[in-house]
């Protein structure tokens, strides 16, 4: 029975495909795979906005939205209606075509990457054997969109925002990719399906997730920090910089275009989080062998929600970095650390299994971490100060 529930969507698709004439089969098959994704993730976006606002509210000792629908859960509907009915303003001097295309491109790019993400057992739109590569290649289209938006608006703030965004995204793409290389080294495959399948095995009750190795944990943390920067989330939300450059590259957008940017940003965040889950947290695999009866897609979304909650939590706590500090952090800390992490992962593979390789690899990474953070501190002389009082 759990098998059937686990595979219910796959079986449903096969059953439906039986009624389709063979000529149309490829098209219908594609539609049947794509449409659920196109529905599920925007729905998740709606849920996330409510969760974020309520979560932030509670962290700030407020109630958060609680008027629209039960417990305010219909708030995204109201927001959607609001943004649809708002006036669409295009600045007179803007490049109209590019201004229109930018939000479309960001949404398309964000949706494309879901093609390679395994949502559950046997549930992936396209099992590419270069899936991870595809993910990063398509994901960088977001930068294009951001630049289109910033440039075409012809606003000084949006241009500043776009410049910041480009610099930030390119800098953090490197640690993002380097952090995922350790997994590819371990799995020996670029296919996301293979990577997850390798992690979905158990020793006793414990799974073989890559996060449970020293290099995997480091990789995961680097990946998550870079993902935060990639998706312009606090504390790396400089391109938007609400209090500095107001809304950065989408300052001149209103109405539904603005909502599309919003959607694109969140979809990007889900995608990178989903990639982190796929690479390090075992994808759809259950955390313990005795929990495998729970359907795989439930695990996937549970992990996704957990990561989203972490994002919200961080957003509720931290102030924003400054551009030069952000760059310093990327190039002087993240990049060397991810390179050393690759080295550590290599050492891991060539050492015999046992406590010794744990010790050696942990030591390598810890020493690197301490040295690099000391280097980071040397440039920035900040310290906790004590104060004197006048007599």
């Amino acid at each position, binding site marked *: 029975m759990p098998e059937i529930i686990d595979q219910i969507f796959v079986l449903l698709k096969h059953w439906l495909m039986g009624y389709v004439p063979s000529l149309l089969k490829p098209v219908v098959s594609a539609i049947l795979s794509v449409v659920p994704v196109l529905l599920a993730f925007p729905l998740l976006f709606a849920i996330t906005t409510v969760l974020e606002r309520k979560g932030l509210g509670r*962290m700030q*000792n407020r109630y958060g939205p609680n008027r629209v629908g039960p417990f305010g859960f219909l708030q995204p509907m109201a927001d959607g209606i609001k943004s649809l009915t708002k006036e669409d303003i295009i600045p007179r001097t803007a490049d109209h075509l590019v201004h229109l295309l930018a939000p479309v491109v960001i949404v398309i790019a964000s949706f494309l990457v879901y093609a390679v993400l395994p949502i559950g057992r046997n549930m992936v739109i396209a099992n590419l054997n270069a899936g991870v590569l595809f993910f990063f290649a398509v994901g960088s289209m977001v930068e294009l969109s951001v630049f289109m938006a910033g440039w075409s608006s012809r606003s000084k703030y949006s241009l500043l925002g776009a410049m910041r965004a480009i610099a930030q995204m390119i800098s953090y793409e490197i640690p993002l990719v380097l952090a995922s290389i350790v997994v590819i080294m371990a799995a020996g495959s670029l296919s996301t399906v293979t990577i997850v399948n390798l992690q979905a095995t158990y020793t006793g009750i414990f799974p073989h997730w890559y996060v449970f190795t020293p290099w995997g944990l480091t990789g995961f943390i680097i990946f998550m920090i870079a993902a935060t920067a990639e998706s312009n989330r606090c504390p790396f939300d400089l391109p938007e910089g609400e209090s500095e450059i107001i809304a950065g590259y989408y300052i001149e957008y209103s109405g539904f275009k603005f909502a599309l940017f919003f959607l694109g940003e969140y979809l990007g965040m889900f995608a990178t989080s989903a990639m982190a889950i796929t690479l390090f947290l075992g994808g759809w695999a259950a955390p313990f062998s005795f929990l495998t009866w729970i359907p795989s897609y439930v695990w996937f979304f549970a992990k996704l929600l957990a990561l989203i909650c972490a994002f919200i939590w961080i957003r509720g*706590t931290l102030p924003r970095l400054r551009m030069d500090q952000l760059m310093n952090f990327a190039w002087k800390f993240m990049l060397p650390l991810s390179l050393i992490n690759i080295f550590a992962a290599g050492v891991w593979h060539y050492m015999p299994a046992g406590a010794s390789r744990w010790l050696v690899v942990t030591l390598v990474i810890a020493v690197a971490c301490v040295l690099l953070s000391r280097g980071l*501190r040397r440039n920035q002389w900040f310290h906790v100060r004590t104060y004197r009082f006048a007599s």
Partner: protein
Amino acid sequence: MLGQGILKGLAETARNFFGSYINKDRLTTVQFPEERLPQIEATRDFPFLVYDGTDWDQGMRCVSCQICEKECPPKCIYIVKSADKKPDATGKPQFYPARFDIDISVCMSCQICVEVCPFDAIKMDVDFELSTTDRFGGLLLNKQQLAKSNEYYNKIHPTEAAAVDAALADERAKADAKLRQAAEAKAAAAAAPPTPPAEKTVVQ
């Protein structure tokens, strides 16, 4: 260690997140139309005119002395003094305001009119739901809209109103005593033979 302060901050927000479900003190928000804060007695927003008795027009304490109009810093009070006198709640003939308007779109709720009023006729209200679609007329309150009973005043500012009532009663008692004294003196005077100069004036 890099990140210690950040972790401390994260712990703090987590504490607040869960604390807001447990500890009611953390949530200062009041769900307004359903929930309301208890009325604070000293609260003030816009002035109103106090009347004694039941008839707002007759019982109005204001005798149109126009001190408040003169003292009002943004000059939002507009008074037209009556030409004649009308008996007030106690029956004593007094001037009354033929027109008494307060433009509450100009009023800045400073309470100076209340402070300078020698007759305790103008007091501060607590009603704040005054929004209207008519920007000019709707926020210009006339005498009738401003008139509120002494009972209402007692309800919104009980301590202050009690003190005012006591002072007024005291004053009235004194005035009555004076009146009685005067009446007695008059009676005494009437009993005595009339003085010639008084008669003279009467004749004239």
